[in-house]
C-alpha cells in the first residue's frame, strides 16, 4: 500500500495549494541563487527556470516518489519538485562536500537517486533516453513506475530525441516526455525551428504516440493534463509527449547578453501576463494576505537552507581524481600504478 503522504498530488483544495507552494519554492530558490551570484558568493553560471514553475510543479506533482525524472541544464525546478532538499542543491552549487554530487556536478548536474531524480543532463536532450531506459528496465524488474523526461524546445531538434521516441514506439516504455517550449533556444526563437506553439506536439504525434499541448502559465491545467497522460502511460506502458508552452523570463544563463536578441523588458512583461504563480493565486483563489504569508514562509525556508548550505565544507581535494571509476577499480589502480 502506498503511504498517503506519498500519494501524488490530486485535485483537492489542499493538493492545489501544494502545487502553488512548489512553484513558490522554485521561484524563491531561483531568486536566492540569483542573488548569491550577484553578490559574488557563488561561482559558475546557471540557467534560471523562473517563469516555468508550472511545468515542474504541474507534471512532477502527478508522480509518486518512486517515479523517475530526468532533466536538462535548466533543472533546479524539476529537482525541487521531485523532492530534492534546497540545502543539498545550494551546497552543490557552492561546490561543497554536502552537495548532492560532492561539488563535482554543479548547477547542471543535480542528481538525487533517493528522490528518483536521475539527473540533469547538460547535453541538450541527452537525458531523454536515460529516462526511457530506466523506466523500461524498472518495469522489467517488476517496479510499477513511470519516468518523466524534461526537454526544451531547442532539444527537440536533437537526433537523440527522435531516436528515443522511435525506440519507445518500438519497445514500449512508460515514459512521458515533457517539452518545455519557452519560446527560445538560447537566442533562437521557436517559430524559426518549429512554428507556432503546438507544432512540437504535432511533430511528436507523428511517432504514433499521444502528444498534447498545454499552456504553461496555468499550473492546474498542466497538472490535469499531465495527470491524465501519466495515468495512461502507467496503465499502458506506452510513451507519450506533452508540449508545455512557457516563457523564459530571465536571460538564457547568468551572463547571457540577451539584450542583443530580446527587448530589454520582455522577461518582465512576460511575467506580468503569464506568471503561473500569480495565476494560481487568482485561480485557487488565495487572498493577498494568505499568498503573502505563504510566500514569506517559503522565502524564510529557502533563506535558512542557504544559510545551512554555507555551513558545509569544501570538497576534499583528493575527490577531484577519485570516483571516476568504481572503488574496486581505483583501488587496483593505486596498487598497480594506473
Amino acid at each position: 500500500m502506498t503511504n498517503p503522504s506519498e500519494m501524488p498530488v490530486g485535485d483537492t483544495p489542499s493538493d492545489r495549494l501544494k502545487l502553488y507552494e512548489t512553484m513558490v519554492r522554485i521561484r524563491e530558490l531561483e531568486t536566492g541563487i540569483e542573488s548569491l551570484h550577484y553578490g559574488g558568493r557563488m561561482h559558475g553560471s546557471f540557467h534560471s527556470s523562473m517563469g516555468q514553475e508550472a511545468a515542474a510543479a504541474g507534471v512532477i506533482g502527478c508522480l509518486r516518489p518512486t517515479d523517475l525524472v530526468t532533466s536538462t541544464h535548466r533543472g533546479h525546478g524539476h529537482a525541487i519538485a521531485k523532492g530534492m532538499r534546497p540545502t543539498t542543491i545550494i551546497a552543490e552549487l557552492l561546490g561543497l562536500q554536502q552537495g548532492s554530487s560532492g561539488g563535482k556536478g554543479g548547477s547542471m548536474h543535480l542528481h538525487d537517486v533517493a528522490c528518483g531524480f536521475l539527473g540533469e543532463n547538460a547535453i541538450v536532450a541527452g537525458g531523454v533516453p536515460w529516462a526511457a531506459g530506466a523506466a523500461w528496465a524498472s518495469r522489467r524488474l517488476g517496479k510499477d513506475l513511470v519516468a518523466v523526461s524534461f526537454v526544451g524546445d531547442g532539444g527537440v531538434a536533437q537526433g537523440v530525441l527522435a531516436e528515443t521516441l522511435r525506440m519507445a514506439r518500438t519497445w514500449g516504455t512508460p515514459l512521458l516526455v515533457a517539452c518545455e517550449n519557452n519560446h527560445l533556444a538560447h537566442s533562437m526563437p521557436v517559430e524559426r525551428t518549429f512554428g507556432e506553439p503546438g507544432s512540437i506536439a504535432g511533430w511528436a504525434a507523428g511517432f504514433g504516440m499521444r502528444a498534447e499541448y498545454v499552456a504553461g502559465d496555468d499550473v492546474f491545467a498542466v497538472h490535469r493534463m499531465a495527470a491524465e497522460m501519466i495515468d495512461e502511460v502507467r496503465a499502458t506502458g506506452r510513451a507519450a509527449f506533452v508540449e508545455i508552452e512557457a516563457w523564459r523570463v530571465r536571460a538564457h544563463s547568468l551572463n547571457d547578453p540577451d539584450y542583443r536578441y530580446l527587448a530589454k523588458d520582455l522577461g518582465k512583461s512576460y511575467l506580468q501576463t503569464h506568471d503561473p504563480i500569480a495565476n494560481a493565486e487568482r485561480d485557487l483563489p488565495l487572498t493577498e494576505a494568505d499568498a503573502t504569508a505563504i510566500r514569506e514562509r517559503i522565502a524564510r525556508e529557502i533563506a535558512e537552507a542557504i544559510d545551512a548550505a554555507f555551513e558545509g565544507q569544501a570538497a576534499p581535494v583528493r575527490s577531484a581524481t577519485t570516483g571516476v571509476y568504481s572503488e574496486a577499480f581505483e583501488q587496483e589502480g593505486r596498487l598497480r600504478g594506473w
Partner: protein
Amino acid sequence: MAGELKYAEAIRRALADELATDPAVVVMGQEIEALGGVFTATQGLAERFEGRVLDTPLAESATVGWAIGAAMAGLRPVVEIMFMDFITTAMDQIVNGAAKLRYMSGGQVAVPIVIRTPSDAGTGHGPQHSQHLETWFAHVPGLVVAMPSTVADAYWMLRHSIQDDNPVVFVESKYLYFRESGEIGATGAADHPYAARIARSGRSVTIVTAGRMVAESLAAAESLATEGIDCEVVDLRFIWPYDREALTESVERTNRLIVVHEAVGDFGWGGEVCSWAASELFYSLDAPIRRLAAPRAPIPFASHLESVIVPDRSAIESAVRDLARH
C-alpha cells in the same frame, strides 16, 4: 570446457553464460534477434533467452542512452554496435553519459554497460567499416577499453566486462571472428582482471600490442627467431587500464621496446605507451622506442592498398630487425 571454439563462438558463449548466470543482463543491438548478429555473435540467444536479446531500431545514440538508463535502474546491458565506425553516432552518450555519470553524480549511480563492437581491416569492408577507434575511448576518463586477441580472452574478458561496474568499450576483432580458434579453458589466465598477457617470452625486444596484431607479432617473432632475434610479445588485452607492471618487467628483460597497433599512429594509444615508457623506463632502454602503426589514411577497399596501411608480419619483422640492430 573442452573443445575448440572460434573467436565469434567464444563471444556468443560468454553472452550466453552471462545471460544464464545473471538475470540483470540484457543484450541490445541491431539485427541481433532473428539474424543473430551480422557476425553471428548472438545466434540462437534470442530464442534461448526470451525477451532478453532484443533488436533495436537503427538508433545507436538512443540505444546507448537507453542502456545507460537501464543500467542506472539495475540492469547490466550489453550493447552491440555493428561496426566500430558506427560508434561515432553514439559518442555523446558514451562520453558525456556513461563515462561521466558516476563522477558527476558524486558516486550515486554506476553505469555497468558493455559496448561490444568489432573493428579491423582485412575483411574488405572499406573506409567506413574498418577503422580502429579504441584510442578515443582510452582517452576518456571513466571508460575501460578491452581488446581481446584470443578465444580464451574473448570469452573471459567479455564475462568479466559484463560484471565490471564500469562502462566498458569492448573492441572485438572482426578479422579473428572466424579465423582464430582455441580453447576457453577453465578460468581466465591473468592474475588480475586487467593484466597483460605474455603471449611469447623473449629476451631481445619487447613488442607491445593488442587485438589481431598479436597474431601478426607472434608470426613475425617466429621468423625473427630464426635470425637470432628473440622477441617478447606482450598482449595488453586492455588499452585502458594498460598493464604498466608487465611492461616494466618485460622491458627490464629486453631493454628494447616497440609498440604495434592497427589504429593510426599519430596520436594513437601507442604514443601514450611510448611516452610513459620514455619517462618511466628510460634507464632500462638500450635503444629508442619504436612505434609501428597505420599511416594517416582511412582503410582503403582494395586489398593491395589496404596492405599498405595495415601493419603485417613483414612490416613488424623489418621494424624489429632495425630495432634489434640498434
